[in-house]
């Protein structure tokens, strides 16, 4: 393993320190934590519902890169691929509550769910109103009683964008939670890997693929997918993934947003080629794409791969996706 790091133990605090020090006008770090909170003048004047997300590190720029006007109020970074602890989340909640309550955006992993739950209990003991939405956009895992449920992956960035826009516009906590859940229900993602990520503390890739193989349905923590196949041209990959995702929407009318997301080690060049093929697929199916975004938004360390997210989005959501924000990385 070759990585530009110092001690494996200090990866997260050093990363957060680098992020905060290079973006002092946007964010500050909460003392004694690896939580990052808005640091702009508007934040302190404004009274809005706080929006807090977080999770294991290794998915940068998620979540700290999305803290700022129009998106998250704070983000809590756990160790690599490890949910943050309840006390850190609790500190972030306290730092952003402006009396109107705080919405927690949690990705559906047992660790995240449990730690955010404990933090919620702590905050409620302080009479802070809390609502939680759990993102589970990954359709490669079946949502059955026999699994933890679907995973939260790249769609999380879109959920944070829409919810962040609505919170900025003054929506109350209950409505925000309802909106968030509605967005989640209409957001579907599937990912493929060409090469697994190397967790620094482990030192080797999470799994091995042959020189001509890709894996379908991988998660953002090196979770294995549902099938290994020979690599195909981008066109064919786009065809398969679009089909698979659109199958999940019973009513295919209306407008849609797409996100082509790089996993960290895949160049933008390939992401744009794939996005081009996705748009071709969508238009050949006469599906109306009103918003699209391409880039490394929700990564998995140095994983090579890509994910496609499709969101069924009415014109109001599209507007919220388009609104400018002031963050490090959106």
């Amino acid at each position, binding site marked *: 393993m070759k990585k530009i790091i110092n001690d494996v133990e200090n990866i997260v605090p050093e990363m957060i320190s680098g992020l905060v020090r290079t973006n002092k006008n946007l964010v500050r770090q909460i003392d004694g934590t690896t939580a990052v909170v808005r640091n702009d003048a508007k934040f302190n004047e404004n009274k809005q519902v706080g929006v807090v997300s977080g999770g294991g590190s290794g998915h940068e720029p998620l979540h700290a890169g999305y803290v700022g006007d129009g998106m998250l109020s704070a983000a809590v970074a756990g160790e*690599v691929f490890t949910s943050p602890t309840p006390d850190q989340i609790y500190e972030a909640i306290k730092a952003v509550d402006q009396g109107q309550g705080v919405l927690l955006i949690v990705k559906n992993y047992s660790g995240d769910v449990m*730690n955010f739950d404990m933090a919620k209990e702590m905050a409620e003991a302080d009479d802070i109103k809390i609502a939680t939405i759990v993102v589970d956009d990954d359709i490669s895992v079946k949502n059955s009683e026999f699994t*933890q449920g679907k995973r939260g992956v790249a769609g999380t960035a879109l959920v944070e964008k829409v919810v962040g826009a609505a919170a900025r516009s003054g929506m109350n906590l209950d409505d925000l939670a309802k909106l968030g859940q509605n967005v989640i229900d209409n957001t579907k993602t599937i990912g493929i890997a060409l090469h697994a990520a190397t967790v620094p503390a482990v030192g080797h890739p999470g799994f091995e693929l042959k020189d001509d193989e890709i894996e379908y349905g991988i998660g953002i923590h090196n979770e294995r997918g549902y099938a290994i196949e020979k690599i195909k041209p981008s066109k064919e990959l786009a065809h398969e993934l679009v089909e698979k995702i659109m199958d999940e929407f019973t009513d295919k009318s209306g407008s849609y947003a797409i996100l082509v997301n790089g996993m960290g080690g895949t160049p933008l060049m390939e992401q744009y080629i794939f996005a081009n093929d996705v748009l071709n697929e969508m238009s050949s199916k006469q599906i109306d794409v009103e918003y699209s975004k391409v880039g490394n938004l929700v990564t998995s360390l140095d994983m090579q791969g890509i994910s496609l997210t499709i969101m069924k989005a009415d014109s109001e959501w599209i507007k919220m996706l388009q609104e400018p924000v002031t963050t490090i990385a959106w």
Partner: protein
Amino acid sequence: MKLELVAAKKWINLFVEKIEDNKSELNELDTAIGDGDHGTNMDRGAKAITDSFAKKDPDNLSDLYKTTAFAMIQKVGGAAGPLYGTAFLDMSKAVKTDNLELSDLIQIGSDGLKRRGESDVCMKTMIDVWQPIATAMKNGNFNQQTINEALNENKAMVATKGRASYLEEKSKGHIDPGSQSSAYLFEALLEVMGV
């Protein structure tokens, strides 16, 4: 049998040692069916326990388990932090006024896991180690064999909770990392019990 303060402290310290010694093995188990960090997570917790004990040596059982719980909750993160944390916190509350029979104590920990994880035995989680051991203790036949059997059964299961559940059938044939770290906890207990 009841565990008094000195023995209980030895138990936790031995657990800490075993975790530190087997950090990479736990990471490898988690790489196979999870996300590769269980060893690193538990090691962070182990070091936090040692630090907490050094800062203030617990002078009663409730405090010992509470200190252990807080170290896990505040430093481990992931799934294992709240799970071990809840188990030990519940155990701490239970021994506040009176010490308990070991079998009752471990049963309380196991119930804490079930509540926090919204889970039960046979889902290929650490509960597959805690629950059979609590039961074996009640029946007076807890020994290394109990642990080995629990791990063997766990290995054969298909996961339905935690990250490993995403693998469905493919989770079979691997020991769940949290079950392995729990096995160390109970092997440490066996040593302290002098069995």
